[in-house]
């Protein structure tokens, strides 16, 4: 089981956290076209490599944070960004 480095609680079992998926910018709801909005809802880059993604420390500090993970090796790249906007994709 993956160890996820929570910025507050330190490395924790991934089951202690909720996976929030790829960091993804939220389009302006008043101007977004259906294609843009649905890309935000459903389309993910899903790279084999470095990815900035969101985690919620559900059983610990209750912080949402974003961090970069290599999806091919499961290596995390420091530092996690506390309270990072979902749109903070690297």
């Amino acid at each position, binding site marked *: *089981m*993956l*160890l996820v*480095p929570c*910025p*507050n*609680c*330190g*490395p924790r*079992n991934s089951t202690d956290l*909720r996976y*929030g998926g790829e960091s993804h910018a*939220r389009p302006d*709801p*008043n101007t*977004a076209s*259906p294609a843009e*909005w649905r890309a*935000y*809802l459903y389309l993910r880059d899903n790279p084999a490599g470095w990815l900035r993604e*969101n985690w*919620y420390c*559900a059983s610990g500090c*209750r*912080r*949402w944070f974003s961090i970069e993970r290599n999806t091919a090796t*499961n290596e995390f790249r*420091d530092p996690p960004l506390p*309270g*990072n*906007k*979902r749109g903070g994709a690297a």
Partner: protein
Amino acid sequence: MTMSRQGVQPTEVIDRAAKLRFRWNGKRFSGFEGDTIASALAAAGEQIFSRSMKYHRPRGILTADYWDPNLMVQVGDDPNVRAGHRLLESGMDVRSQNAWPSLNRDIKAANSLLGRFLTAGFYYKTFMRPQWLWPTYERVLATFAPGGKIDLDTPHAYHDKRYTHPDVVVAGAGPAGIEAALAASSAGASVMLVSHEHSVGGHLRYSSAAADQAALAELRTALDASDVEVLTDSTVTGRYEDNWLGIVQRNHPIAVERLIKARAKTLVAAPGLIERPYVFEGNDRPGVITSGAARRLVNLWGVKPGERAVVFSANAEGDAAVADLERVGTEIAAVIDGRTGGSISSTRGSSRAVDAVVADGASIGADLLVVAAGWTAPTSLLNMAGDRPVYDPAAARFFPSDPPSNVLATGGLAGDAGLDGLRQHGAATGRLAAARAAAVRHRLQSRTARALPVDGDEPAWAPDERAPLGRDPHPELYRADTHGMVDMSEDISSKDLVAAAHEGYDSVELAKRYTTATMGPSQGKLETVNTVAAIAEARGETISQVGTTVWRPPYAPLTLGALAGRMFEPVRVSSIHPWHEANNVSIIQAGQWLRPDHYGDPAAEVRNVRENVGLIDVTPLGKLDLRGPDVPKLLSLLYVNKWMKLGVGRVRYGMMCAEDGVVLDDGVTGRLGEDHYMMSTTSSGAGGVWEWVENWLQTERPDWQVHVTPVTTAYASINVAGPKSRELMSGVCEGVDLDAEAFPYMTVREATVAGVAGCFMWRIGFTGELSFELHVPAGHGLHVWEALMEAGSDLGVGPFGLEGQRVMRLEKGHFIVGQDTDGLTLGPSTGLGSLIKLDKDDFAGKPELAWAADRSLPMVVAIQPDDPDVVPEEAAQIVRGDTNEILGRITSSRYSPTLNRSICLGQVEADLAAGGTKVTVLLESGERIGATVIDHHAHFDPAGERLRG
């Protein structure tokens, strides 16, 4: 073959003073403490232990250890016990499996005459068509299914779980593994040493060499004096990300099995080597055994494996077996040396004879054929860490290639050396494991913001400076010039594999699935390399070119009980729970909560609420305390409706949609003070909504000043409902005017109830009656409940449960998120589309809801069956006429004791949503009934006069 018990051996593990009596197929037997079931039976001269899976061929001891495919037995109600490993206990009732009517005369052995028809893919090819015959095929095939019998009356046994965080876990307790554990422990690491066997020592246990025994004694003494935690009869079953390990402990004093979940900083894999059978005609006959089996039988249990033996030896272990056999008086008829080109072609003879036919066609009379043809490297744990082992033809086995640096191999898995060399490599591995574990520990601690400060810099990642082990040359011996069994668990011969390859299943992974080779109880420990070799031969390629299958968890099987284990899931009850339990409650589990479903008669509970007054414990209702100047903005963002102008003391209903416009949750939120609000959520949505709120505040609107505190369990919640609820409340409330004008519907007041200050009281209700929802500081919940019961005794107060509430909310037509809506139900489909305020600047799901406004969507509607006595099942389909075209479904249905008729909510296509529309409901029985969509959601009191009262 005739096995028998011999005189005391210096290495034996049996206590000849402790005689254990047991039964084998109903007959009385005895063995000694320390015997396995198989060794006791072998000592008593038993020859046949099981019948093979497909051909029902008689099978005897092959390896005499855990992996022996022929020693699966039933012990009492425990099926598929490995008699080669399970220790004998007094009074055991042991029976053979897969034999009918008896082990020695098995009628299905006729299958072996049909062998050439039962070839690879036989079941796939034969039983495919015609499809209508499948039920018949299945019944017949089921009688041929191997394995033991499951007793449905077996009592529920206790299984345990344990979590641990050792620095180093060493999997395997041979000399290298023990040295690794000792060295790591000396270097300051916390170490867990896991031995698959009943005692540590690996192959030293059954070596008669004096030097080996001296080393074993020395290692055991050192272990006893160390801080190493030693687990015997336990197996590291799996290695997962970041060295998360599953370890099954089979000899726990209380639990049947205990699953240990260990987060190791480094893992040392030292499983040793597993002896590989050799493929030739008749290689599965009783009397053909591995050299390891011979050595274990002689040295551990003092059993002479046969009277006259032929030994086929290609390595030192085979030579050592010759010496062991001679010592107990087995006559050595011949030693065929595999290193100099000698081979075994087949076996002949009947009953107890196993005459060996050698390469030149000569037959050597014997009752025992001992085979030492090479080794399988059980690279499972390395496979699970991502390593792909590489074949070395010179050594005739696979070796690790490039495992991650927190997984280290030692012992026979890593290479060959004399005992001293293995021990030195083990110790060096242990030191390296400890050094790397220290670096991991430092990193974990220094990266934890609130951990104790850690001294110094993170230690450098220790380089691997171990002197590598050598590789002893070994002939590549897989198959003789005849065909024989490759997989004895599954009855797969080399001929089957060649046929599979010729049919096109010529990749190892495909051939494995097609033939089921390596998929039986031995799980490839004995047969993988021979399978690969057979495929390679059929393809005319080398083993390196063909590659091997990937070993996945578990390394050794564990029971489902161990996996299910002891549950750590908490159960939640409200502070009022003791009262429910004392009052004939029927409990229903809802998520983690145990909730009152009813108290005997839900219909009577409903009538009492409609006529008098009732109390329901709604503590699990989600409650979030929201404070700060920006709460109205937050509410406007999360709910579809408007919140900027909610006055202090007012309550409003809100619906939440996700960003895709699908209904997420609903509930009421009240304004308790200038900057203080209380949000209620559905009981099942309490956790999810909290997370949702935090997500928006932390990631999208971090500049907003809102503080969120979940208070679901800080308050006990009681809904007081019914026409006499105000009268009841007036007897227990202080500090609040309960008059309808002073405290109207959809308002909230703080009050002292039954002497308890700090209670919140909402004028809302799910039941449609005049009601007061009380939120009482949790510790006083039971007191307030009892006070209400007492105060209302003249008014006919009674409790009601979830079932009664469900009936009443259905009478009122209130939908339940997740019951009447689903993962595709957009906001407007609930019928509350007018709540959605698209003129707000922003809110969750706004674009989707705006686009949905122009579309015709399925709608939640209230439906009444034409026959008032028929209650359609929930999820019954609404169809078009006599067709099976689905137009909707019933989402909730009950018999209403208030209206004396069946009532429903359902979802239907937009063009059926108008009041008065006739629909057809297809019941589970196949019957179709007529029903009518009614004008509004409420079956009862649509104007809402009762709850406003």
